[in-house]
């Protein structure tokens, strides 16, 4: 099971808490999937925050607050500081967004914010691209986990760049890697795990499915299958057929 900053997590599915039809369905999705981490945010208190906090505590799993919506280093750092106090955790899913259409991370600001927060004792989970140099800079800044996107948040496109994700895995064999965002189907999540990733973070694919609880379970099973498959050392793909049934001993009938 994945280990993030010395904490072993019970399940490699990291599940978001937004966009569900109801709080009860959200809680059921967590129970059905056995998700190991719940991602949360913080927003202006408009009346619902206290009930939500109680609901999250009831899940009894580690909480990973995010800095979603932040577009600058200052915003992200201040949000992280508030999150640390509010959720009583040094963990922060660091998002600094550059482009609103793709929710593409501002990787320059991300590295700067990651350094400030790491120096201040935070344990940073950066939402990043699969770029090798950016990921290297994030590790230099103090990050001990990387969370490259599979595809833009909420797009459900799966892994846009399997080559890049595989390359990242090969370059940083000892760093916990999480595919964060873009997952639409269980097969996408399985593919991430087959690449040797340590965990998958998703939200929309479960929350907006017709049956969130069933989809949460499907994601968990796919992640488990992908993890088993990676550990089982899969065969290499090849261009030509290779018969599986023995040719030796075949009756001569012509």
């Amino acid at each position, binding site marked *: 099971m994945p280990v993030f900053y010395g904490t072993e997590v019970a399940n490699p599915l990291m599940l978001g808490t937004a966009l569900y039809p109801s709080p009860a369905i959200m809680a059921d999705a967590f129970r059905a999937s056995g998700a190991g981490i719940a991602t949360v945010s913080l*927003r202006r208190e408009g009346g619902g925050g206290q009930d939500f906090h109680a609901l999250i505590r009831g899940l009894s799993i580690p909480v990973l607050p995010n800095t979603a919506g932040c577009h600058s280093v200052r915003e992200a750092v201040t949000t992280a500081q508030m999150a640390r106090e509010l959720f009583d955790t040094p963990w922060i899913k660091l998002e600094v967004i550059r482009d609103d259409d793709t929710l593409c991370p501002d990787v320059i600001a991300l590295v700067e914010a990651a350094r400030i927060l790491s120096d201040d004792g935070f344990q940073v989970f950066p939402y990043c691209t699969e770029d090798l140099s950016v990921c290297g800079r994030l590790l230099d800044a103090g990050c001990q986990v990387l969370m490259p996107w599979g595809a833009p948040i909420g797009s459900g496109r799966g892994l846009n760049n399997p080559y890049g994700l595989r390359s990242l895995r090969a370059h940083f064999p000892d760093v916990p890697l999480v595919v964060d965002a873009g997952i639409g189907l269980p097969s996408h999540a399985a593919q991430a795990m087959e690449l040797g990733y340590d965990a998958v973070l998703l939200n*929309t694919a479960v929350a907006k499915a017709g049956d969130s609880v069933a989809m949460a379970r499907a994601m968990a099973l796919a992640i488990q299958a992908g993890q088993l498959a990676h550990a089982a050392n899969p065969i290499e793909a090849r261009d030509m057929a290779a018969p599986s049934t023995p040719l030796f001993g075949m009756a001569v009938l012509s």
Partner: protein
Amino acid sequence: MKITLNGETRELTGPTVQDALAEIGLAGAKVATALNGAFLPAGLRGEILKDGDALEVVAPMQGG
């Protein structure tokens, strides 16, 4: 005094941040605060508010 509370101008008595939270019914609530764009830790809510200050009060919310 006039305080910009979560983006809305409000007339609050204060004088401290903690008093202002009590005034809006959040004395014991699970919230975090930022004053004029900078994080204000819970232990520093004795800070005296000034006219025109911007106070952000955030709470746990759904997120991905």
